């Protein structure tokens, strides 16, 4: 069939999968060898220590950055709906390799009460689908700070609202983060934002107010929502009875009105609890029913997140979160999409063309293909710091479960930061789920990647 014809005519770029796999294994072996080298050298004799004061001299400008290489190997899942969508007209075998590179440059200039800051991001990817490269300004803004109590920012900036680690339903003015890698830097929006801060003695220790204006016009935040609007939002922060509390609101504009609240508190020195709640007015959701008909509904969406962070006596950090997405799809709504893909696939392999698959692909690139599109998730991350007294070495495992369909992912990783400014991370991601489940219908069964990031 057509897939076989493509297999015969397919051409690969760069080294083959076996070669890339071998390189990945070699890199992993080098990483492990570095960790296991016996550290038996004698303790240094009594030393004197110096502190060169030129190291702390402040300059008005700063230039720095971050460079990263990240080869990845994916094991494909031929039964998955997303595999059928992406690979229906090509055959890449059982596995595909991908090479990712990232370069971030940042610079700042400070004079008096003013400061300019810019951070660019360049992503390079070479994969089965070819080469892509994209450069964008992640952040670029000016700050005016006439005193400790007031600040004004204008330009492209991340606001990062919310207290959740893996998800932030109340981050109304931020791009969604990837729960698989929540600490990755994100691209901001162009805003005009102020911060007004007051400190007090007593139960209310801090109060700060952050009003924000976010314009949406052609070429200005044009992927935020309905154009030709100036969106107003605000956040009120309180440190009250040793609890961080934020109240957030986004006025009706390019997106419908929404409000949120979050909190975070250390119950004991090693146990933190946090939560985040969001209400979206008149949220409009479109979905595909099992007959293939597109339907939509408008309703008040409520999302909630509750989580903990716990540090054991053995330096194990446990982060656990439950997330309910009020904008997510139900199992039935997801089944409608998977049924559409199945019908499209059947039509394609029986010579009926790819029109249905193309339609499904459009839907997948919208809401069905977003990160965690369903309603209820559980997130658990366990990080063991420096086991067996190996400093700078931290293994971790992350489990994310979809409570609606029973699927889950398991991601073990090791991070090594012994070398100044260099971080090495070896990470795998295994997906488990039955038919019509989110993780069972993904295009991959597992992936393994090595990330080497260098800051300068």
């Amino acid at each position, binding site marked *: 069939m057509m897939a076989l014809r493509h297999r015969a005519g397919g051409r690969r770029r760069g080294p083959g999968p076996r070669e890339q796999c071998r390189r990945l294994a070699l890199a992993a072996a080098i990483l492990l060898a570095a960790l296991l080298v016996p*550290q*038996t*050298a004698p*303790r*240094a004799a009594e030393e*004197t*220590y*110096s*502190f060169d*004061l030129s*190291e*702390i001299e*402040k300059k008005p400008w700063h230039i*720095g950055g971050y460079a990263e290489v990240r080869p990845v190997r994916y094991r494909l899942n031929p039964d998955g709906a997303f595999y059928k969508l992406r690979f229906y007209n090509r055959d890449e075998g059982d596995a595909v390799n991908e090479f990712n590179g990232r370069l971030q440059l940042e610079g700042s200039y400070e004079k008096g009460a003013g*400061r300019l800051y810019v951070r660019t991001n360049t992503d390079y990817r070479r994969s089965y689908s070819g080469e892509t490269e994209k450069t964008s300004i992640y952040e670029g803004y000016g*700050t005016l*700070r006439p*005193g*400790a*109590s007031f*600040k004004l920012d204008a330009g492209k900036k*991340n606001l*990062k*609202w*919310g207290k959740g680690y893996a998800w932030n339903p109340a981050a109304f003015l931020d791009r969604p983060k990837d729960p698989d890698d*929540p*600490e990755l*830097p*994100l691209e901001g929006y162009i805003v005009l934002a102020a*911060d007004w*801060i*007051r*400190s*007090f003695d007593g139960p209310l220790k*801090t109060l*700060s107010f*952050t009003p924000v204006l976010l314009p949406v016009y052609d070429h200005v935040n044009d992927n935020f929502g309905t154009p030709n609007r100036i969106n107003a939002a605000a956040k009120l*922060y309180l*440190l009250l009875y*040793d609890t961080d509390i934020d109240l957030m609101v986004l006025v009706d504009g390019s997106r419908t009105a929404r409000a949120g609240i979050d909190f*975070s*508190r*250390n119950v004991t*020195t*090693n146990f*933190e609890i*946090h939560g985040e709640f969001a209400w979206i007015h008149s949220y409009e959701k479109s979905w595909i029913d099992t007959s293939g008909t597109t339907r939509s509904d408008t309703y008040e969406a409520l999302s909630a997140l509750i989580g903990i962070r716990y*540090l054991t006596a053995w*330096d194990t*950090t446990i982060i656990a979160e439950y997330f309910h997405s009020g904008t997510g799809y139900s199992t039935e709504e997801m089944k409608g999409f998977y049924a559409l893909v199945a019908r499209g696939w059947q039509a394609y392999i029986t010579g009926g063309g790819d029109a249905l698959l193309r339609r499904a692909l459009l839907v997948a690139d919208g809401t069905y293909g977003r990160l965690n599109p369903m309603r209820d998730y559980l997130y658990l991350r366990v990080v063991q*710091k420096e086991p067996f*007294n190996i*400093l*700078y070495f931290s293994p971790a495992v992350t489990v994310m479960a979809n409570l609606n369909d029973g699927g889950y992912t398991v991601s073990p990783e090791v991070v090594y*930061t*012994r070398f*100044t*400014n260099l*971080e090495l991370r070896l990470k795998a991601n295994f997906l488990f789920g039955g038919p019509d489940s989110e993780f069972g219908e993904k295009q991959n069964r597992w992936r393994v990647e090595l990330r080497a990031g260098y*800051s300068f």
Partner: protein
Amino acid sequence: MLQKLMLTSLVLLFALPAFALDGSVLLKQVDRNLNPESYEMYRKLINVEPDGKKKEFTLFSVKKGADRVAALFLAPASEKGRSTLRLGENMWLYIPNVGKPIRITSLQSVVGGVFNNADILNLDYSTEYDVKSVMEKDGGYLLNLKAKTREVAYDQLRMQVDRNRRVPVRIECLTEAGMLIKTLYFKDTKDFGGGLVRPSVIETDSPLYKGYRSIMIFAKIRKRTFKDEVFTLTYMPNLDSLR
């Protein structure tokens, strides 16, 4: 009669220093001899591994009053821009990439190595500890300290104090059960100006990290006052503007 009077006077004369030794007063003297109550300073942290390999961090720190401390990482590049804030027992870490402060605990360590967050964002000893007992030992004083609350990182401290300078020479940090967690050694006394003469190096080791050491070197400790708003989550990304 005269003999008895002289004998009593002699006994009282020798007993006087012991009665005059008030542990709480001594601890407060130790605090003020280490830092002004509100200050700015620079520190270099060095983690030394058993094979002699080192990893260094440079920090700018500010403190106000009894319980407000903030620190900004200046180096290495991978840590630059990170900042930590402590308000009483509340601690936060701001990482530029993450973009918002997250709560941390006193027992964690943002730098790895033997120093933990409580060591890096330390308050005055008299703020966190009561003096259980004080005695003269090895030509100086030995203070036994007990944490005022369970939130304090170390339940007990055994502090050896230099008799003349009234600064610590060595501090043993212990659990409630008396298990040694780490020992801090205060070294290389230096004149920082403004009447502040104190050890410029703190070295620490721990039976929990056999063979590893961490060193903290102090520079440019200066008395300085700040507005309260500097010690807030909102200000954390902007600590560098204080330098």
